[in-house]
């Protein structure tokens, strides 16, 4: 500070003092983030342009991408994984987020008893490790030891039970619903917070105008929480296209049966690290990672530049 005070008084008022503390406080986060996120990201993008030629790493331009989309097997694997990933995302959007909003709306009802208990109980699975979630659901749904067949028998629905995780037509839906079960607490909490932010005056004014109950939710509350729903959709999109852990713990790296639960994350894992007798292919893995990055980037940009700008905001 003192050196600035002694500077030429003619310029001093125009120049703002250099606020070093900002940079100092930012530095640790910036350095750590650069070391563990940005550099690896750049390195991955770079690796996708290289491949082993005659035992040496060499720059090959876009040849890896050409192979990924041109080779019939790799392309089939990739499109299969991408499509499964889209289904995975759609199920989350159609099941997780509406349920999350509904739960939040119910929790914010002023005369609900045990609201705090419900809120915690629904949020707890989100805090559990995906390994535990995957393992307990595998056990619950196991046709041999699981409690699902027995419970369904109690209500006379035994005939509807099938080994869902082992059938290609139902495995992806089952895994998606397990994931929904685990993460439904997040949209619930965010929407809950948004709902609590709506000032009582607005709601009272609505009541004076005769808007109550359902129409109050649709006409007053929902427009006010739309920005939060947008954020949740983006979070779901990013989370789903980066997903890997739950599928890996429930279905293994092969994401069976017959690749029906294979999403981009598991495909990337198998390609990059290899599996069993398949040896890992680092450049091709980096290529898939790059494509994933671009897909997520495109989705987020679409939201930020197209959807978010058109969203109407209300100031209270």
């Amino acid at each position, binding site marked *: 500070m003192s050196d600035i005070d002694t500077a030429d008084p003619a310029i001093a008022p125009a120049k703002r003092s250099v606020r070093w503390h900002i940079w100092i406080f930012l530095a640790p986060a910036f350095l750590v983030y650069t070391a563990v996120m940005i*550099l690896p990201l750049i390195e991955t993008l770079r690796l996708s342009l290289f491949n082993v030629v005659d035992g040496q790493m060499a720059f090959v331009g876009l040849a890896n991408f050409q192979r990924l989309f041109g080779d019939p*097997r790799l392309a089939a694997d990739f499109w299969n994984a991408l499509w499964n990933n889209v289904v995975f995302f759609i199920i989350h959007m159609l099941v997780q987020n509406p349920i999350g909003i509904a739960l939040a709306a119910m929790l914010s009802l002023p005369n609900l008893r045990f609201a705090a208990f419900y809120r915690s109980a629904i949020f707890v699975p989100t805090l559990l490790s995906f390994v535990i979630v995957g393992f307990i659901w595998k056990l619950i749904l196991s046709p*041999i030891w699981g409690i699902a067949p027995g419970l369904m028998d109690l209500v006379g629905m035994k005939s509807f039970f099938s*080994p869902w*995780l*082992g059938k290609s037509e139902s495995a992806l839906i089952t895994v998606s619903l397990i994931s929904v079960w685990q993460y439904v607490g997040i949209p619930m909490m965010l929407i809950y917070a948004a709902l609590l932010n709506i000032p009582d005056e607005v709601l009272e004014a609505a009541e004076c105008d005769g808007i109550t109950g359902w129409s109050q939710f649709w006409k007053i509350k929902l427009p006010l929480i739309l920005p939060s729903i947008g954020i949740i959709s983006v979070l779901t999109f990013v989370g789903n296209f980066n997903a890997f852990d739950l599928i890996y713990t429930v279905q*293994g790296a*092969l994401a069976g*049966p017959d690749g029906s639960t294979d999403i981009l994350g598991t495909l990337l894992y198998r390609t990059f690290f290899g599996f069993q007798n*398949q040896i890992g292919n680092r450049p091709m893995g980096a290529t898939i990672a790059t494509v994933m990055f671009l897909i997520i980037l495109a989705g987020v940009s679409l939201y930020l530049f197209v959807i978010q700008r058109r969203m109407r905001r209300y100031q209270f």
Partner: protein
Amino acid sequence: MTRILKGMLFATTVLAPAGIAMAQETQLTIESWRNDDLPIWQEKIIPAFEAKHPNIKVTFAPMAPTEYNSAVNAKLEAGTAGDLITCRPFDLSLAMFEKGQLAALNDLQGMENFSDVAKSAWTTDDGATSFCVPMASVIHGFIYNKAAFEEVGVQVPKTEEEFFAVLEKFKEDGNYIPLAMGTKDQWEAATMGYYNIGPNYWKGEEGRKALIAGTQKLTDPQWVEPYATLAKWKDYLGDGFEAQTYPDSQNLFTLGRAAIYPTGSWEIAPFKSQADFEMGAFAPPVKAAGDKCYISDHNDIGIGLNANSKNADAAKTFLSWVASPEFADLYANAAPGFFSLNNSPVTMQDELAQEFVSWRENCETTIRPSAAIVGRGDPNLDLEMWRASANVINGTMTPEQAGEETQKGLDSWYKPAK
């Protein structure tokens, strides 16, 4: 920046273990996928070695079998792998040797104790250099519950027809699940199914070598028929076998809920400690009575020297000991079901293990078809066969499609030598 970062990573991963090596005695680490065998190594094998070589301390560091290959490859590339590397047979270890990660062991004392066949799984294609000490082979077959067989009143099947008759009997009886196998993990379907019964169809080595030479195709009847037989197993598997995992199958059998368990000899030791009924074993049934039988006697496990090991001399001492008859005897009896490849005859105490090994007298032996030469490409034939076998049993693929798909995958990269 990258360089500094790499330096930091290097310092934390490579240099850290170096501190331990400074101690007086030499420290050896074995990388392995046999996490089931951890107690055997810790309680029997390593103490026996350390008693003879008190200045060498050995650590057995196993990991999960499905993660072993990629993990050990990554460790070798980063220079953090242990001194001794447990070798998968054939193409995987060969790739490591070709990359200079495994040392040549031709002049290792004790290598003369092994036949060329035993060494074949860890020798270059031209047969000149060996790079792993052969430890053991495993034999495929079926383990059955003797009490269950008596209860239902059936005999051990010799032919395929008898085999299905036995399964049908168990199904009618209803007390036991006829076959304990699931398709969720996929590898059981191929390893315990296709590779197990297949050699009787493609006539063992004859078919395997013809496949490598390109004179037979996976679409030929001798390669498709085993799939058709596997498809018939479906009716005799437990409810919900599509979601049944490998540990599920093991538990179903050892808890006495299933009658027959298609498997390999590696299961003997764990089963002995878990099952409280008497177990027997039979070789894959032949098609018609009197047919020559073929079994899969797969060179499964060897041990090699990390070419960058700092303790190469101590590691070689250990490897020579592994090549000795003393180790052969110790290992074959400590881990029954892993059969010694050593020339010196080993007397095994375990009856079930003796039963498995007795098939060698009458049957021709072969190895898994996807292991050597045709298994080194992308897509990997072994994984393709896992998927195809599981699909065939699930009924989502016909045997013919399974043959076509696997052949198509092989054609995409493999050109047989002319």
